[in-house]
């Protein structure tokens, strides 16, 4: 039973991809993505209940689910549901406008499902080497999605994306090779199995492990949007089609960050908490600084959202650096909240781009009058993003900040908070101009209706607000996952 549950989130997207490859993107095949995402979500929830009650589940020595993996599965499947609901209207509009043809639409559908399968494999794999292969596979399958429109900007973004991410992730591979050497000489026979490595971490040679961890954090940090290898992110996230941007910002960043979290547990056991803390703290502050400085004068709203994703990766790094049960739980809640809200916002931004034909903030204007529902969703989404209650990002940012002050990391936390406030002001200011500013003369481009997109946006915001008010059974799961991160279980 548990084996079957574990295989569903992996097998269903693969089958859906095969179906789209055979049948193409048509009206009857469109709902398959939604069914696939909902099935995965259901399996993830059941798995989460199972592992919280009975402990980790292992299949064939290759796949393992513990509370942390189950939580990540829920995040992936939730964002996938939002994206699946928003995709039909997006592709219908692109097809109607002649920007893509049927073949592009089919390829889009196939690659998105492959992308989901790769991310699922990354959080299910028991071996860090397989995690690496899965994360690198996400780069390969999304490369052509980023460059889908074949404009100069799209091709440039795709090139930078593949080159920077593959280089970064190559450094992580070198780190894993070095970690493997430390593991081989620890006499525990752990190989690169993360659970065995964490259990036998004290036997790892500290000098070799330090080198390995440095490379791994730098490498997976590239894919997670952490400075200094973040330069690809605003290009790729702004050029990719909206549903893909939503997946990349909403979950791909946190899936890469998941790899860092797994290695952090091992590093804390082998080296004590200070080494990774200093590393992540430096990355977090640098990342927040980059994000703040480029958001203030931002002119493109999709790039604005991308820099906001960089900010939130920085916050995740800050929370992970602080460590401890409170900060770890807050980091996980933040992953979920940011995933939901950012995917809603990228879906909304994609719709705005299709309606107005421009991605410039100052050319949108007056959206609240022209498209009140869309404007309402985007407005609420941005308020959620800057951490206003009742949305869950309020609780998670508050938790990270409180844990920071309690862990006597007052100065870095205060500095981070200042940057977060600057970013919030910039985001609200830019969005305000888009929604409330004077409407331009040019009429909106007529687009096919997008009822399911609206459902997706409202649903995502509602879910984020609900989690922020009553976390309910999710608390048990998050606490169990946070216990894994602090090395308590």
């Amino acid at each position, binding site marked *: 039973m548990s084996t079957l549950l574990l295989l569903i989130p992996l097998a269903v997207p693969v089958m859906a991809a095969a179906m789209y490859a055979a049948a193409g993107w048509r009206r009857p095949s469109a709902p398959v993505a939604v069914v696939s995402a909902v099935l995965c979500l259901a399996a993830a929830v059941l798995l989460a209940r199972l592992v919280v009650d009975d402990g980790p589940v292992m299949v064939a020595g290759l796949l393992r689910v513990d509370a942390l993996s189950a939580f990540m599965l829920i995040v992936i499947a939730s964002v996938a549901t939002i994206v699946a609901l928003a995709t039909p209207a997006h592709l219908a509009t692109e097809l109607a406008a002649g920007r893509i043809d049927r073949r592009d639409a089919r390829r889009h559908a196939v690659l998105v499902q492959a992308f989901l399968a790769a991310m699922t494999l990354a959080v299910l794999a028991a071996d860090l080497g397989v995690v*690496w*292969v899965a994360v690198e596979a996400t780069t390969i399958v999304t490369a052509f999605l980023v460059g889908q429109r074949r404009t100069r900007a799209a091709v440039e973004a795709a*090139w930078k994306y593949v080159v920077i991410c593959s*280089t970064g992730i*190559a450094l992580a591979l*070198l780190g894993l090779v070095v970690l493997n050497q430390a593991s081989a*000489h620890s006499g525990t026979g752990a*190989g690169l199995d993360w659970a065995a490595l964490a259990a036998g971490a004290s036997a790892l*040679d500290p*000098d070799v492990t330090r080198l390995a961890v440095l490379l791994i954090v730098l490498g997976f940090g590239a894919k997670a949007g952490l400075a200094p290898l973040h330069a690809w992110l605003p290009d790729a996230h702004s050029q990719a089609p909206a549903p893909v941007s939503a997946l990349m910002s909403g979950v791909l960043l946190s899936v890469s960050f998941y790899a860092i979290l797994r290695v952090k547990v091992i590093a804390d056991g082998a080296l004590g908490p200070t080494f990774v803390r200093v590393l992540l703290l430096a990355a977090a502050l640098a990342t927040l600084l980059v994000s703040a400085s480029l958001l203030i004068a931002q002119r493109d709203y999709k790039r604005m959202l991308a820099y906001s994703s960089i900010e939130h990766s920085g916050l995740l790094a800050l929370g992970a650096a602080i460590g401890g049960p409170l900060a770890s739980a807050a980091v996980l809640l933040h992953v979920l909240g940011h995933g939901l809200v950012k995917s809603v916002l990228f879906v909304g931004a994609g719709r705005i781009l299709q309606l107005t034909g421009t991605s410039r903030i100052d050319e949108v204007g007056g959206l609240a009058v022209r498209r009140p529902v869309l404007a309402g969703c985007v407005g609420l989404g941005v308020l959620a993003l800057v951490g206003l209650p009742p949305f869950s990002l309020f609780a998670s940012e508050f938790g990270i900040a409180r844990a920071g002050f309690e862990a006597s990391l007052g100065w870095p936390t205060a500095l981070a908070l200042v940057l977060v406030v600057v970013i919030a002001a910039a985001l609200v200011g830019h969005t305000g101009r888009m929604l409330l500013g004077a409407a331009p003369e040019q009429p909106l481009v007529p687009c096919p209706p997008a009822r399911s997109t609206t459902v997706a946006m409202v649903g995502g915001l509602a879910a984020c607000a609900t989690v922020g008010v009553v976390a309910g059974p999710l608390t048990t799961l998050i606490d169990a996952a946070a216990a894994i991160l602090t090395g308590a279980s």
Partner: protein
Amino acid sequence: MGIEMSGLTVQLLDIAAGALLLTAVLVVWRRELSVILRVFALQGVALAGLVAVLASAQRSVELGLVALGLLVLRGVVLPLLVRRSLAGAGPVRRETTPMLNVAASLLAAAALTLLALAVSVPLVALDPSPATRAVPVAVAVVLIGLMVMVTRRHAVSQVVGFLLMDNGITAVAFLTTAGIGLLVEAGIALDVLLVAGVLHVLTGRIRETFGDTDLSALRELHD
């Protein structure tokens, strides 16, 4: 691992490792892309040779087969793929506007080799076998590959830089613990092949949309 090696094996291992580093330095030195590609193919052969020496030292058939696979992938398939990218990359066959001149790049390569020696100290200290003593050379290849990626402006040069890095990482993997599991090894090889394929297609698209494969033309996206 502590495998006993005869004097001859150690010498062969050193020759293979030396060839690995020498080819990397040649890539830095030369500007003619067709020459760079030939040198890159030679490096693939040197890497396969290195693994073959390890295979004979350990009397491992499995490792021997891996060496054969490496020879096909890195000595033949990847160089051919990059050669096709070059054929479709337009009239420019030279690295025309590198960010570093020859002397500066060679000096940088020397500095990176010293850096590789320094960072590999804990690895050698953990297991001072002849194979592990060659690890700094492989790390130097990784760093030189990184430098090629950062300083070269031609799309094909960047692809070669990436593949140099990858050759170096593979060498580190085999020199330390003789690989990291066949499944992961196969996954890595497949990933590298696919990345090279993706970059091949993108090189063609850059040529289509920009009319050239000089990456200095990629200036559409900025803040």
